[in-house]
C-alpha cells in the first residue's frame, strides 16, 4: 500500500513537471518573443538595460531569485494581494506561483536563442519585406516566423528542459507540496533524503534519458542551417 502511494506521488510529480514546463513555455512565447524581437532589432540605450535584466536569472543563484520571489509573492504585496482577490488562493506555494517563477527563471533560455535567430535574419530582410508592401505584422507572420522556425524550436526545447529540471526556486517558491507543487526534481531529492535510491533511480534515469533525447532531437534538427517549408 505504501509502495503504491509513493509510486502515485511520482506519477503526479511527472505530470506536474510536464504541465509546468508546457504552461511556462506558453507564457514565455507570449512574453519572450516580443522581447527577443525588441532586443534583436532596436538599438536604443534601453536595450542594454533590458538585456541585462533578461540575463540576470542566468547568473544569479536560484536561491537569490527564490528569496525575492517569496517576498514579492507574499500576500501583503500588491501582486500577492491581487492574486488572492482573483483566485482566493495565495500565490506562494501555488502552482501558478511556480509558473510565474519558472517564466522568470527560464526567460533567458527563451529569449537568447530566439534573439540570435532574429539577428541572423537581419534588419535588411525586414526592410525588404516592407518595401514589397508588407506591414510589420505581415512581415512578422510571413517572413520572420518562417525564417526563425529553428530559433523557436531551440527556445522551446531548451526552456522546456530547463523548466523540467529546475530545483532551487521551485522548492523555495512552491514548497514541494504533494500533488500541487512537487515536481520531479523535488521528488528525487526527497527519495534520496529517505535513502530510497531505487525510486530516485527511476526518476533520475527518466530525466536523463528524456533530456538526452531532447538534445539529440535539437542538434539533429539544427544540422541544416535553413528550415524550409515546402
Amino acid at each position, binding site marked *: 500500500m505504501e509502495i503504491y502511494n509513493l509510486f502515485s506521488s511520482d506519477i503526479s510529480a511527472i505530470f506536474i513537471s510536464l504541465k509546468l514546463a508546457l504552461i511556462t513555455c506558453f507564457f514565455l512565447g507570449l512574453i519572450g518573443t516580443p522581447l527577443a524581437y525588441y532586443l534583436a532589432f532596436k538599438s536604443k540605450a534601453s536595450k542594454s538595460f533590458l538585456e541585462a535584466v533578461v540575463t540576470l536569472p542566468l547568473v544569479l543563484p536560484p536561491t537569490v531569485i527564490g528569496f525575492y520571489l517569496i517576498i514579492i509573492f507574499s500576500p501583503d504585496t500588491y501582486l500577492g494581494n491581487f492574486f488572492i482577490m482573483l483566485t482566493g488562493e495565495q500565490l506562494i506555494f501555488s502552482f501558478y506561483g511556480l509558473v510565474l517563477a519558472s517564466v522568470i527563471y527560464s526567460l533567458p533560455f527563451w529569449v537568447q536563442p530566439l534573439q540570435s535567430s532574429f539577428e541572423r535574419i537581419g534588419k*535588411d530582410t525586414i526592410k*525588404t519585406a516592407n*518595401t*514589397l508592401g508588407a506591414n510589420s505584422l505581415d512581415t512578422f507572420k510571413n517572413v520572420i516566423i518562417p525564417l526563425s522556425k529553428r530559433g523557436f524550436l531551440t527556445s522551446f526545447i531548451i526552456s522546456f528542459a530547463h523548466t523540467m529540471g529546475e530545483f532551487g526556486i521551485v522548492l523555495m517558491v512552491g514548497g514541494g507540496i504533494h500533488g500541487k507543487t512537487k515536481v520531479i526534481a523535488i521528488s528525487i531529492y526527497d527519495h534520496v533524503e529517505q535513502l530510497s535510491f531505487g525510486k530516485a533511480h527511476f526518476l533520475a534515469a527518466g530525466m536523463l534519458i528524456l533530456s538526452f533525447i531532447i538534445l539529440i532531437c535539437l542538434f539533429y534538427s539544427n544540422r541544416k542551417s535553413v528550415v524550409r517549408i515546402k
Partner: protein
Amino acid sequence: MTNLYVKLEGKIGNILIDFEHNFPLKGITVLYGPNGSGKSTIISAIAGFSHNLKSKIIYKKMVLDNGIKVPSYKRPFGIMFQDPILFEHLNIKQNLDFADRRSKPKVGTQKIISKNELINHLDLLPLLDRHPENLSGGEKLRVALARTILTKSEYLFLDEPMSDIDIKYKAKLLIFLKMINKKFNIPILYITHSIEEISQIADNLILINNGKKIDYGPAQDILNNNSFQNLIGKFESSSVLEGLLKSSNKPFNMTTLDINGQRLIVPGKPRLENNKVRVRIRSRDVIVSPVKLDFFIVENELEGVVSKIETETNTAFTELVITLINKKSAKKFQTLRARITTYNLQKMKLRMNSKVFAYISSVSIDRQAY
C-alpha cells in the same frame, strides 16, 4: 506638383548629408558618386528608413515625410537595395508572389507589365522552382529586379542592380529597363558605379559627393563636364557622343552611327534604326593627328577643332577637348576628349582652334544596349 521632391539633412556615420532634389517623373535618372558619398542613404530615406535624417519627401501632392513618416509599405515606390535579399524560406516563384500579392492598386489607366512577361524578359522560368541559396549572384539580382517591378510601383529605385551581372547579360537588362521606363511610363532612379551603364541608360544624371549634390542635368552634358571628369579621375576620363543608329553591317556585326553628319562605326547589331544612342569613348583611346591620314588604320575618323587644352603640371599628360564639326547644322556641337602626352602635343604643334582628326578604334567602344 508633378515631381518627387526630396530634401535630406543630417549626419550618417562620417558624412554630412545635405541633399535636395526635384526628381522628374519621367525618364531614367542616374545617381552617381564615389563610395561613401551617400547614394544608398538617399534611396534608403526615400524608402522610409533613415530615421536619423531630417527629411522632407513629397511625391506629387502626397507628403510622405515631413516629421511624420508614411510607413515604407505604403509608399508608391519600388525599391531594390544594393545586395538584395531574397526570402530564403520561399522558392523563386513564391518570392515573386510575395510582391505580387501585396502589389499596389492600379492607378488610372496605367499600363502594367504582367508577371509572365517579366518572367520571360528576365529569363526566370528555369529558376522558378529553385531556392535562393542555389542561385548565382546575377540570378538573384534578376529575381530581385522582377520582384521589385511586381510591386507595381509608380517609381523604381534601383541601387546597383547590375553589379553582379555579366557583361553579356547587362546589355539585355539595360534594354529591358529602358523598355519598362518607356512602355510602362515608370520613372527610374538608378545608382551605378559603371560609366558604361550611365552613358547607355541615363537621361539625367545627378552627381553627388560627400552627401551633397554637385551637379545635375541631361546625362550627355554632365558626362562631358569638368565636375564629372574630376569625380571619376583622369584615368577614366571619357566623353559621350550621341548619334542616330543608321545602318548595320550584319555579316561583320557592326553598326554605323551618325554623329551630326560624321560617321562612327560601333560593334553590335541594333534592334531599332533611327534611334538615338550614346556611346562612351575613353579619352585615352583617342588618337589625335593634325593631318588627315591617307591610309586606313582604324574604323573611325572624326573631324574637329581643338577648343580647350588642359595641360597637367605633375604628369606627362594633356587633355584636349575637341569640338566636332557638325556637317548638318552649325547649332549643336558635340565634344570629344582626348588624352595625349604633353610631349606629343608640342611635337604636333597643336594650339587652340587647330584643326585635328581623331582616330578611334571600334574595338575600344563598349558593347551597346541599343
